[in-house]
């Protein structure tokens, strides 16, 4: 029942949004729906619901984490949307609003379904639902971005499907008893899976979901899509939608570890992680467009996530923590970046100067978000990044640790160049449209995220720690 609610409520809200035809009233559906969804999620935190439908649906630590992150971020972003969509009167927001809540539904499906096929379906729905968000501005650039996003996304989705098939073939030996694609069955009978097929499955799933997640060298759609979509869409893409494919990869990893392929999987993950960080570093240096810069920073942090998972149990714990921290921080960055973009009518260093003078609150939050995402205490990402570093060092992976720290330094230099020149300085006076300063809701939303980051950075609640620990154990072959 609760699963039905989790998945169904957002879809119903989305359909309602399609039905309502007043651009003023429609957006109010979002916070409403998200609030309901979040309350259900809170209920899940209280008591984990039992598996149903012969184990096709159930929630474990991993799913719960991603689900809560998605629900919370969409709740806050929907508040942001209220005001944002009022400012963007010239565009009809029917599709935009509907797709936002479809995304929530799809993500919930990914989180609660334990059947790789269903996971895949949810993923695909999320991908498609995100396309209108990217295309919201309806200009040539956003069209190109959407085109690239869809082509790459479809390719990734296809490859992921192929990977799922491989998984099924790996499970053929124990076909018949139960559904071979239910994760619990796979993990339970991991010993009997045929290894070559499983290796293939992991590779295809990694490449397929990695494309959607934006790991280098599969990331190339990301700067375009993030750069051309509205700030709030960027926040949802970077914070919520990327965490679904990550969950998919984690599932595959879980099965591989159970089947004793942890070495193979971890080496792949570490390699892709460092590769993504390096690629991000190359493109962040000298990046003049601060939204594209954020996109590359997202590539970097996706890399950090898989790197952490590749570093064993402690690393996985840190990576899961970083999943949340990164999502929240990206929320701050993209929302404030959107505000700055609008205040200056441009998203490059040439347009935007001295944001601190024009939109003080947003600019301050943008600066703090930058400091946080680059791993400075007392913000939450520091804790996770430092734990990942420790995991590398404790595991005697000194080369990895060195690369990690070095790349972090390079990326910091690159981001600092852009961010500081955007935030500080004097705004150039001749700006096209009338200057609009900070507006309540659109600064409140990132403020909430920032508060959460600081809180998590100084005080990681016990319940969260336990869930993270369970999830990490789950990943690395422990009993759930």
């Amino acid at each position, binding site marked *: 029942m609760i699963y039905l609610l989790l998945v169904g409520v957002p879809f119903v809200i989305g359909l309602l949004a399609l039905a309502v035809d007043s651009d003023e009233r429609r957006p109010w559906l979002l916070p409403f729906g998200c609030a309901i969804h979040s309350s259900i999620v809170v209920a899940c935190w209280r008591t984990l619901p039992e598996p149903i439908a012969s184990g096709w649906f159930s929630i474990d630590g991993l799913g719960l984490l991603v689900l809560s992150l998605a629900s919370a971020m969409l709740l806050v972003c929907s508040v942001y949307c209220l005001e944002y969509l009022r400012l963007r009167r010239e565009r009809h927001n029917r599709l935009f609003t509907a797709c936002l809540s479809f995304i929530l539904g799809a993500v919930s499906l990914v989180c609660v379904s334990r059947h790789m096929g269903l996971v895949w379906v949810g993923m695909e729905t999320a991908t498609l639902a995100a396309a209108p968000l990217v295309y919201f501005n309806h200009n040539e650039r956003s069209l190109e971005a959407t*085109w*690239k996003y869809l*082509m*790459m996304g479809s*390719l*990734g989705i296809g*490859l992921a499907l192929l990977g799922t098939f491989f998984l099924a073939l790996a499970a053929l030996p124990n076909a018949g008893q139960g559904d071979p694609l239910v994760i619990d069955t796979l993990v339970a009978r991991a010993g009997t899976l045929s290894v*070559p097929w499983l*290796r*293939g499955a992991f*590779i*295809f799933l*990694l*490449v397929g979901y990695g*494309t959607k997640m934006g790991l280098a*060298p*599969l990331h*190339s*759609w990301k*700067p375009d899509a993030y750069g051309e979509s509205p700030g709030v869409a960027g926040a949802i893409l970077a914070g919520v939608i990327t965490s679904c494919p990550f969950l998919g990869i984690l599932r595959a990893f879980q099965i591989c570890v159970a089947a004793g392929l942890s070495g*193979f999987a971890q080496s*792949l993950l570490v390699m892709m992680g460092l590769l993504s960080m390096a*690629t991000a570093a*190359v*493109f962040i*240096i*000298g990046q003049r467009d601060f939204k594209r810069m954020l996109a590359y920073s997202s590539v970097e942090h996706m890399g950090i996530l898989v790197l952490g998972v590749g570093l064993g149990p402690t690393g996985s714990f*840190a990576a899961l*923590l970083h999943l949340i921290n990164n999502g929240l921080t990206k929320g701050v960055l993209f929302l404030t970046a959107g505000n700055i973009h609008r205040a200056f009518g441009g998203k490059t260093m040439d347009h935007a100067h001295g944001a*601190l003078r024009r939109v003080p609150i947003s600019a301050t939050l943008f600066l703090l978000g930058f*400091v946080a995402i680059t791993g*400075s*205490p*007392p913000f939450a990402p*520091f804790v996770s990044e*430092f*734990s990942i*570093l*420790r995991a*590398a*060092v*404790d595991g005697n992976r000194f080369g990895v*640790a*060195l690369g990690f*720290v070095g790349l*972090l*330094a390079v990326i*910091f*230099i690159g981001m*600092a*160049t852009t961010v*500081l020149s955007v935030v*500080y*300085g*004097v705004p150039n006076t001749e700006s096209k449209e009338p200057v609009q300063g900070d507006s309540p809701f659109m600064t409140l939303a990132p403020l909430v995220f920032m508060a959460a980051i600081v809180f998590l*950075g*100084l*005080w*990681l609640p016990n319940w969260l*720690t336990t869930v993270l620990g369970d999830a990490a154990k789950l990943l690395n072959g422990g009993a759930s």
Partner: protein
Amino acid sequence: MILLLAAVLALGVAAVLSASLFRHGHAARIIVIGGLAAAAIAGGALAWRVLWGLEVLDFIRPWLVPGAVFHLGIDSLSACFLLLVLIVGGCAGVYGEGYIAASHGHVPAIPARFFFLVLMASMALLVGARSAILFMVAWETMALAAFGLVSCEHGKPEVRKAGFLYLLCTHIGSLCLLALFALLGRNAGSLEFSAFAAAPALPAAQRTAVFVLALVGFGMKAGFMPLHIWLQEAHPAAPSHASAAMSGVMIEMGLYGLMRLLALLGPVSMPAAIFLVALGLVTAVFGIMFAMVQRDFKRLLAYSSIENIGIILTGVGLGCCGLASGSPSLALLGFSGAILHTINHGLFKSLLFLSAGAIYQAVGTRDIEACGGLQKSMPWTCGLTAIGAAAICGLPPLNGFTGEWLIYSWLLRPDIGHGMRFAALAAAILGVVGAFAVVAFSKCYGLTCLGQPRSEAARNAKEPSWIMLGPMALLAALCAIIGVFPAPALYVAFAAAGNVARLARPAVSSGLDEWSRLLGVVGLLGAGVCALSALLWSLRRSLLRRRGVAAGPTWGCGFTAPTARMQYSGASYPVPVTRVFTALLATQEEVHPPLGYWPVKASFASRTPDPALERWLPVLVAKCEDWLSVPRRLQHGRLQLYLLYVSAFLVVILLWKL
């Protein structure tokens, strides 16, 4: 230990209040000064207890962050730095109120107050931190607060540049520290400092790694050559009370980190110790040489901070030499010299920065060439500047001499092992540094405050308000007191040095007795100089009272129409020295000599760029740039290529891993 928390909290609360509720006027001023005072009382009481040997229990609370424990502890080393923070920071903070008020909005009040108090709080927390994560939190908060102070006046491009540079350097340093603590934590199995101390010795390779990481991580903050690049940019950019706190205390936190690490991990090898000494000497010579040739007096002060950091590092290195050669007395002497000089530098450098701020506000420029003759218009400021200048040159009746004297007497100790006689050369280099300091600061003080005004602004400068003069006077008084009565300061320094050298109190106190006796005589002679001067002064007065005293123009050696522009300029003053070291300084000169029988205009301009920042770094950056430009082409914009990446990657992985 509650006292330390109280101090930190007082500062933090004051910061928040001054930024949020009471933004303007007297309320904020009272909040700031009150917070500083409360912190000073609490912290001072705590430091007093610790230094006088009373046991203070650690404050340990669980902290819900992975691998972290909220562990505060304090020993003499911490107490010594805590005192420094509170005294120097307190003076700078009080001064800052006057400075902000007098800047007429050029210095934005809210960030200046907020970040300053946060800086103070984080430094107070830093010296008490006893677990790596708490240390890093305090460290980074300190760095960020300082960044906020540096980029207070971000309207100016040079300020933005300075802030950017500073943020880069400090963050790279912090990353090194993270790696360092990760390494130590791996060895100790916990991020507690006590665990580091108890852990088994690291293997040689990792020891070297730790040494290098610590040197880069802490040296970036302290400004060892060539990691100093941010320093001479950031200090002029920050408001003066901030640069006083940064130069007087914050950069010394880097050295605190080094010494804390020594106290935890024990002695370094002899080559490493000698490397530290060499690095310190190079830094000192480099710093003072470039200080000599500056024409912006805050820049000059910043470079001299590099010099003093070099001297302190030399002392630390000498202490390590003592440890490595198994002679606790030498170790104690070296460390105590370093710490005593740290205290002294904190006092006179902040004094000089404060007076520099006063002069800057009075004249409206930091250019020495535009000042001069200020001693007539602002006698108090200039008098205090004179004291600071004399102290920083290490001249006897003032505190600057005491620390240097300890280091000298380490170096020239006849009974040090035969292997360490290289020390005499180090002593000679220190001598050069001292003499160069005289050049730099006779220039800084003499050309700024004495002679004839070189500009209209300098002619009608005004003395600053008492709220600015008071703290300066206090600092100057401390300089003089430590100079003639060094025993208490020496006691503190030795107690701290005992922590660094991991010696028991009896051993420390035996060394203390010897050296406080000797330094006592030094102070006595300093007092003697003062007494003699007073005697001669009164003699002169009585002599002159009988005869008349006339006033006239300066004797122009037969030239009858001298103007202010004919005085020796900041550029020409150090030339006899710099000519000798042209190769090292690489001063750029632009000369347009007078030509023809009736020369219309002639000009001379000289500028000495920082080698690390303006000669070496650009080359590196350029290299990286064209190295990076190759992979940049990958993001070509063509969808087909992107698809190709995916497919090719897939095929490769399949062929490789399947």
